[in-house]
């Protein structure tokens, strides 16, 4: 039997040094990224399910209670100019908004609807059902999130399972595409409980899926035609369609995702895992920074909300052997409610809408709508982390202190994965501790190559860099990175 005292030492302080000694994270982060709360009229419950910037500069915001507001001057510095006009009401929990050719599209629980103001009074009067080609059973889990339009004019839709574990009606637990003429194309299976959907910088579609059955932790998963993204509860609906080919083999509960993926060709492992409790507990909406620098140095990266922790995290993706994987970093905490929908404007303003109804959130406000602006100051951060056959390449936002960065004592690394199983969630398992053999800083001082012995396929690589300093002696604003290693790059593909 293990000693209680040994257990206590691990349990109470964790493997890594306690971060409690850090300076106040949120106020440090605020020097670089500033959160400002937007004024919401007292009679409006703005549980922002989705947002869409309109061509005329207004911002459409839909709510969980079925309203859609048009907000005038949403990006104005003068907050008194921010005005709400009710555009539509009585809709069924709108969690997706998109705009095209004069119509505002939305996903309700039971259908994709498009709407228009015909008489010019500022309120929509024509509501057209674009598609309702899926089932709905009356369970509150049956959320439907739609994307923006893809280049072909399709909307991508992810449908939550009927409850936590089952798919009682057609296509619950699937991704569907809706074509411009309203045709529905079954696209991916294996969805559990989405929190948001959108594209990365090159237009590939992703969604966040929440921890639960067959999801050891929350994850960012790619959607593509034919893919099975992990949760088999909805796979009986293969009987309704040939669009994805034959039904995948059922995964074996208790196995590991990367092991099952070798047996099940359709199974596409998550691009990013969000280690539970460390990096949020409920991954939600996300936005990509394609502003060309208006939102700071993190060009083409994804900013992913977390509902429980009221945070926004940062994701950098790369493709290895044509499959996505990548790194996850803490980015900004301290939002006022449970972050749900994120929308970034070309001007580099990230709108974050939050709600804690039904699921508690650190922020504490029942709902909030906030802007996140880059202050123009560049924080000392890991800009990017890429896998190499022998370790990792890190780039930094500022030149580094060569001696500190090349000292292997500046780092701590461990790896782990999750049980791929039908019961809820998973602990971190199969823990390994790789050895950092050497670190070499590049000639420009902006990147470093870590030679690591013991990279592990299918594992999250949790890297802490407490000793890393910038050339000006500053520690990293966030000294942690979580790399999901689906595949170790081969040297010949370097």
């Amino acid at each position, binding site marked *: 039997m293990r000693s209680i005292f040994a257990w206590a030492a691990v349990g109470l302080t964790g493997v890594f040094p306690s971060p409690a000694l850090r300076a106040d994270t949120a106020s440090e982060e605020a020097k670089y990224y500033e959160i400002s709360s937007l004024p919401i009229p007292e009679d409006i419950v703005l549980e922002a399910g989705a947002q869409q910037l309109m061509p005329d500069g207004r911002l459409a915001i839909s709510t969980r209670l079925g309203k859609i507001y048009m907000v005038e001057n949403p990006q104005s510095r003068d907050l008194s100019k921010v005005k709400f006009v009710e555009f539509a009401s*009585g809709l069924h929990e709108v969690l997706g908004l998109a705009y095209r050719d004069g119509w505002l599209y939305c996903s309700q629980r039971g259908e994709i609807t498009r709407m228009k103001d015909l008489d010019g009074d500022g309120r929509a009067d024509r509501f057209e059902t674009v598609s309702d080609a899926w089932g709905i059973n009356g369970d509150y889990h049956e959320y439907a999130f739609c994307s923006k339009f893809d280049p072909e004019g399709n909307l991508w839709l992810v449908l939550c399972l009927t409850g936590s574990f089952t798919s009682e009606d057609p296509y619950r637990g699937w991704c569907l595409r809706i074509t411009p003429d309203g045709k529905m194309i079954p696209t991916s299976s294996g969805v559990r409980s989405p929190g948001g959907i959108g594209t990365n910088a090159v237009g590939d579609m992703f969604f966040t899926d929440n921890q639960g059955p067959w999801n050891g932790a929350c994850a960012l998963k790619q959607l593509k035609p034919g893919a099975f993204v992990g949760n088999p509860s909805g796979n009986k609906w293969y009987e309704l369609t040939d669009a994805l080919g034959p039904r995948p083999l059922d995964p074996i509960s208790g196995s590991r995702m990367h092991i099952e993926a070798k047996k099940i060709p359709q199974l596409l492992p998550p691009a990013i895992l969000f280690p539970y409790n460390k990096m949020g507990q409920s991954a939600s909406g996300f936005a990509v920074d394609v502003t060309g620098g208006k939102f700071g140095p993190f060009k083409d990266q994804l900013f992913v909300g977390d509902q429980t922790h009221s945070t926004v995290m940062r994701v950098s993706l790369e493709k290895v052997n044509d499959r996505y994987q990548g790194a996850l970093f803490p980015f900004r905490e301290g939002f006022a409610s449970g972050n749900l929908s994120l929308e970034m404007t070309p001007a580099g303003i990230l709108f974050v809408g939050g709600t804690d109804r039904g699921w508690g959130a650190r922020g504490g406000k029942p709902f909030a709508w906030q802007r996140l602006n880059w202050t123009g100051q560049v924080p000392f951060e890991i800009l990017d982390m890429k896998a190499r056959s022998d370790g990792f390449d890190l780039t930094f936002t500022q030149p580094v202190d060569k001696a500190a960065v090349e000292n292997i004592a500046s780092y701590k690394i461990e790896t782990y994965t999750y*049980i791929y199983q039908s019961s809820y969630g998973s602990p971190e398992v199969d823990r390994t501790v790789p050895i950092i053999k050497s670190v070499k800083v590049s000639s420009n001082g902006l990147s470093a190559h870590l030679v690591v012995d013991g990279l592990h396929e299918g594992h999250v690589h949790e890297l802490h860099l407490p000793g890393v300093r910038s050339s000006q002696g500053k520690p990293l604003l966030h000294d942690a990175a979580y790399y999901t290693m689906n595949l170790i790059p081969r040297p010949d593909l370097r």
Partner: protein
Amino acid sequence: MGPALARPLEVDPGETLLESLQCQSCHNPSERTFYKGSGPVVGKDGLAVTPQFLRAYLLNPTAAQPGTTMPDALHSLGESGRAEVVEDLVHFLVSQQTPAAKAAFDPGLLNRGRELFHTVGCVACHAPSESLAEIHPKNPDAAKTLDTSLKDESVPFGPLAKKYEHANLAKFLKDPTHFHPSGRMPSLSLNQSDADAIAMYLLREQSSKGEAQHLSGIQYRYYEGDINDLEDLEKLTPLRGGVQAGLDLTLPHRAENFGVRFEGQINVTTNGSHGFEITSDDGSRLFIDGQMVVDNGGTHAPQAKRGKIDLKPGAHSILVTFFNGGSGSELQVKWQPPGAKRELIPASALSHSGLPMQPLDDAAFASDPARAARGKQAFAQYNCAACHTGTDTVATAAKPLAELAANNGCLADAVPAKAPKFAFNDTQRASLRKVISNPAGLRKARTPAEQINHTMAVLNCAACHQRDGNGGPVPGRLAYFSTINDVDLGDEGRIPPLLTRVGGKLREDWLGEVLLKHGAVRPYMATRMPQFGEAAVAKLPALFSTADGSFGTARVADYDSRAAKSGRKLVGTGGLTCVSCHTFADHKSLGIPAIDLTTMTKRLRKEWFQVYMINPASLRPGTRMPTFWPDGKAVNTDVLDGNTANQIDAVWAYLSKGREAEVPAGLVVGRKELVADKEAVIYRNFITGGGTRAIGVGYPEKVNLAFDANDLRLALIWQGAFMDTAHQSTGRGEGFEPPLGDHLLAMPQGPALARLADNKATWPTVTGRKGGFQMRGYELDKDRRPAFLYSFDGVEVEDLSKARAEGVDMVLARTLKFKTAQNPANLWFRAAVGKKIEAKPEGYLVDDKLMIRVKLSNGGAAVIRGEPGAQELILPVTFKGGEALMVEELVW
């Protein structure tokens, strides 16, 4: 939590065996405290088993009951001598028993028993008998085949169907420690009905034997669902059934929306007029011999109704139906035979007929007093009383353990006649010898941690609980642990809690409640905490407390009403919203039903709470409980200046008020009526009677409708208030919301339009997309009234309703415009379905409730069809130039 790692507990096998075999029943315990077992109690209040089992068991214990811990005390007797002694013992033991009433085989009860057996915790120790898919048919991942490998690692049952009468097994299951004090079979807090059900399941081999007989008790069928009147019971399948003594609500039932049918015989002894009275909330009826005697139907507060019937002596059939919709429930059934007082119908007058459960190998048996007397002597001679209490026989003690020689007596290779013979294998014998030959070890006091470990091993606590990385459900059994009602709590909702440092977590008095007084705070967990009784576990709370140590020091925060106020602010919405997941006394949470907050301070140690609040996952790995003080820093800076310690202390101070605490903000939700003021309002949601894609429309005239966008039909119309949105805009907003107002009428279900070969053809039932319907949307007019747009089989429909008052009646005037490229001649619209539809000068009267006026622009005649009791009003859709127009005014 994820699946527990099922590592066995590390304990000395010899010592565990010593305790499991209850060696100290004969060999007085040394100074060291052992877990002390005992055999089943015999005698009048003891465990009653059948003579055929007793006989077989005493003749050859291990053959009759594999795995038994009872030694063979008669091993030295020859075959015929032994048979005589056994027969004497059987006569003695049976003579002491109280005879049991026969139970009837009941498939409903059996099914409930099957479910209970596989969910309440029995299969943590015993082998499951059904595959997971049988028990959790809704879980698509449930294994379809039974894992038979568990059998070898489970406590075997022995020949239950031969051993027990149903009533006797049920009695044992209800209170095992009464019959087997400090035995390892715990109580699972079963009520009588649960125990009856599990016993029925375990004795299922006894079913369908013999002929129907009158058996005591009345049969019931229990229903749940959307029950608004007694007729609704006829549409439902009973959830379970059983037998109980009287006509009352002692059967397990939920608070609302349930119904019961009681059926059986009533035994009449006097000739003449019998009065009956039922007091009920809500409705009930009583029938004798198929004739309704008391009608107390409808929804109402407790009210009494009476009736009379002439009856002759003998058995008469009795049927009582009962339902409760909302709020409180009550049922009392009285009778007044001629010349007698009015009284509750006594259980002795009630019976039901059924196939009796018959133990296997049953044969008539009468105890012979002479044999019984000899049996009593044998009982004393073979020292049965050392393990079996319940008779006046006094046990004789053997040498204390510490003075025993390891190779003598029970442990000798050839067991002498005076010692009982245990069915040891060599390993077991060796491990016992090892323990016995080390008297010093036996005398050495166990540390609290060792005592806990031994208790957990002997009682098999580790089958459910993990402690210090050891124990926890093994993979094959893991999936049998389930939640009640599929609540969304993950593994925390189904797997019993971690016991690592539980003594530092829970207060000693609460541990005592949990171990000995059925204390439980996880109503969502199907598995129940077993009760092993004082003798087995009374010391555990103190042992845990000593072994586990505390989590630092509790900050002393004197109770302060202002601190409690801050705590209340933090717990409610707008603070940290703990109520988002946690229930609060009788209030549901806004989301999942996590543990009741008002129980926290009576269970938890404050110093543990202080640590847990800051990092829950450090003490409960994988918990979904988030922290609101990450890194020890408060996220809420509005309350108590964001001081972490003060905030945690304030929450504690507030929760210390228990059920007396003021309810936190966010849980008491008033009505949030959605009002159509100057223009129509729309409410799309799950509406009771309107479907999963209901579109509610409230008109300023106080007329409302719900349109079903799945089936494309007008589903409901009602008057007055429109919808209460409070529930669906609170928490996760689960479930269907009923219309708020009055004069609610449900319109025909199924398709509203159909192509019929002729007006006699049966109206089809397939509807929605499968039936050729497609929702297109709606367009709002200047008063925001929607014209619903949909299509059916190539016909485009526009469906606009307007409202107005007409005297005391309200009118919903519905204009339906049809457009098509073809001119179909056989399209019909179904306007009404009812028991009675009459043509009147002004229109069609449906069930005396709804007048329908019809205008068909292109001619054609309405048709009333069907038989009285099931009629339809169908209207032809007549096209001219590809268009048709119909006005349907609903007046009510």
